[in-house]
């Protein structure tokens, strides 16, 4: 059976070159970067080399990159570390309503330590208005965090503009760029951010590797207390192989980005254009143009996402959904709800995220397989029956 993987946002295959770069550090070159002997120094060299490659991907200096174990850790590190370091200045945070759980739940955790936060709304395309961020900033605001690109609806946010407001107000700005880095050009100076989170598994690197950029001179408290690793801010023996793999993947992403983007954009746009023609009452979610090059997301009316996901899986197609049933918490996506999509429609969410090996035939296959799946589920749906009855009247 044809296998079509369209869930890039959840995972990417490891680039063979990244794997090759990692293997020696899982085998013979097992030294600890903190050891003074040659084996240790060899590992340290590889670690610093990887730091340089990751820094190169986002226009940072090497010393501004701190390795973490994933994007969620980077987000926790930024939010908690930067907020706590500014506690004497104030206790207010400004976040967008469509942040990842690792930001929203970090903020909740900070609220237990006396912080409070304002959630800035988004428009129907999931775009944050920089003016709203500006207006939400108060005298006691110590940190703003706005996602660079949403993994659920693909919308790319005007972070550079938000950065200008934050600088003018003298407030630190963090961006969760996990879904963006490696997929679209990201430059920390152009964005004007003080901190930025990224993860290797979004650009063909290994899982278990992420990083936080912290601009030189920006105060942040250590996230893991212990030894001197990562400048004492994130202690613990480094995941050398994972970091080396991330470095290699970052280097490749930098080189191949224009080519990858162009290829995937063509396929994405065909999907965005064709799917609503083949399926009645299926709506694009997120911004039609300002979106990730590999991301197409929809809400299909009258049915629920998990049913579609399971049927597609049986046909060899891997996708994801933001429906309540596919999340363990059984709640509809807060991102879709924040965009003003009603609960019933939000349940019919489908997210397609392409990878560099996605072909035109893969998209054709999806477009052939999906409409009958939707028909089948709609025939079972009391909401669809009601819609047909109402239409007859």
């Amino acid at each position, binding site marked *: 059976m044809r296998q079509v993987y369209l869930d890039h946002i959840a995972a990417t295959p490891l680039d063979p070159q990244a794997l090759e770069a990692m293997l020696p550090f899982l085998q013979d070159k097992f030294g600890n970067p903190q050891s003074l002997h040659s084996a240790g120094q060899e590992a340290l060299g590889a670690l610093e080399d990887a730091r340089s490659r990751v820094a190169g991907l986002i226009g940072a200096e090497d010393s501004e990159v701190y390795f973490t174990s994933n994007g969620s850790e980077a987000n926790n590190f930024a939010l908690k570390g930067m907020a706590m370091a500014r506690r004497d200045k104030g206790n207010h945070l400004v976040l967008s309503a469509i942040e990842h759980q690792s930001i929203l739940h970090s903020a909740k955790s900070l609220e237990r330590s006396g912080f409070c936060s304002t959630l800035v709304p988004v428009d129907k395309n999931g775009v944050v208005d920089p003016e709203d961020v500006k207006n939400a900033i108060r005298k006691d605001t110590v940190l703003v965090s706005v996602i660079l690109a949403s993994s659920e609806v693909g919308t790319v946010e005007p972070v550079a503009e938000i950065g200008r407001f934050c600088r003018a107000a003298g407030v630190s700005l963090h961006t969760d760029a996990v879904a963006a880095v490696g997929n679209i050009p990201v430059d920390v100076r152009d964005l004007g951010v003080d901190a930025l989170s990224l993860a290797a598994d979004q650009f063909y690197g290994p899982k278990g590797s992420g990083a936080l950029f912290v601009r030189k001179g920006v105060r942040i408290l250590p996230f893991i207390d212990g030894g001197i690793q990562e400048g004492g801010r994130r202690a613990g023996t480094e995941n050398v192989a994972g970091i080396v793999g991330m470095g290699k993947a970052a280097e490749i992403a930098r080189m191949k980005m224009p080519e990858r983007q162009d290829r995937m954009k063509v396929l994405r746009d065909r999907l965005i254009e064709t799917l609503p023609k083949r399926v009645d009452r299926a709506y694009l979610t997120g911004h039609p143009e300002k979106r990730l090059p590999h991301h197409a997301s929809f809400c299909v009316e009258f049915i629920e996402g998990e*049913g579609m996901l*399971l*049927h597609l899986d049986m046909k060899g197609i891997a996708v994801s959904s933001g429906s309540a049933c596919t999340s363990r918490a*059984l709640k*509809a996506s807060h991102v879709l709800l924040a965009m003003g999509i009603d609960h019933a429609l939000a349940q019919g969410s489908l997210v397609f995220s392409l990878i560099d090996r996605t072909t035109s035939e893969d998209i054709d296959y999806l477009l052939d397989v999906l409409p009958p799946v939707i028909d089948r589920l709609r*025939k*079972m749906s*009391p909401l669809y029956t009601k819609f047909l009855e109402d239409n007859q009247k």
Partner: protein
Amino acid sequence: MIYTDKVMDHFQNPRNVGVIKDADGTGKVGNPVCGDMMTFTIKVKDDKLDDIKFQTFGCGAAIAVSSIVSEIAMGKTLNEAMKITNELVAEELGGLPKNKLHCSNLGADALHAAIADYRKKQVPGKTEVSQESEKCYCPYCEGPVEGLETACTACHIELEECPHCGGLTKKGEEKCAKCGADLEPV
């Protein structure tokens, strides 16, 4: 796969899908906010379920549950059908993931609501309200919660009642887990 073969069989080949036009009883449970909604229509002959049809808006488990409930209940007397429990439904399916157990509640509830509707119609003036569908479940661990308790006895999460729909939500949440209404910050 997160589901058993039996669940997948009923999901892929659901039995008794549809709506009976001149039904003797109709039962509806759930709403799209929770992610699941089921309707059962029944035909009754000699106090037995002569025909059952269902429609479901919901996940794979919800579809499989509705299908197997209709299969188990077909031909049974109304009293027998009223004894179908959510535990039996989950067992017949070879088990359900923990966070999908509430789907088995809905299936039995929808059938029971249809039977209650039929019985109500048989006795003019008598109003028999199905208590089943009013039962509360912890939205986090799906364990049954008797009335309003401050905490779920199974997972110990602190709960409070939504003033809009009466559903239970974790204390301190901004939105009701059942109806999505904004809750006053504590």
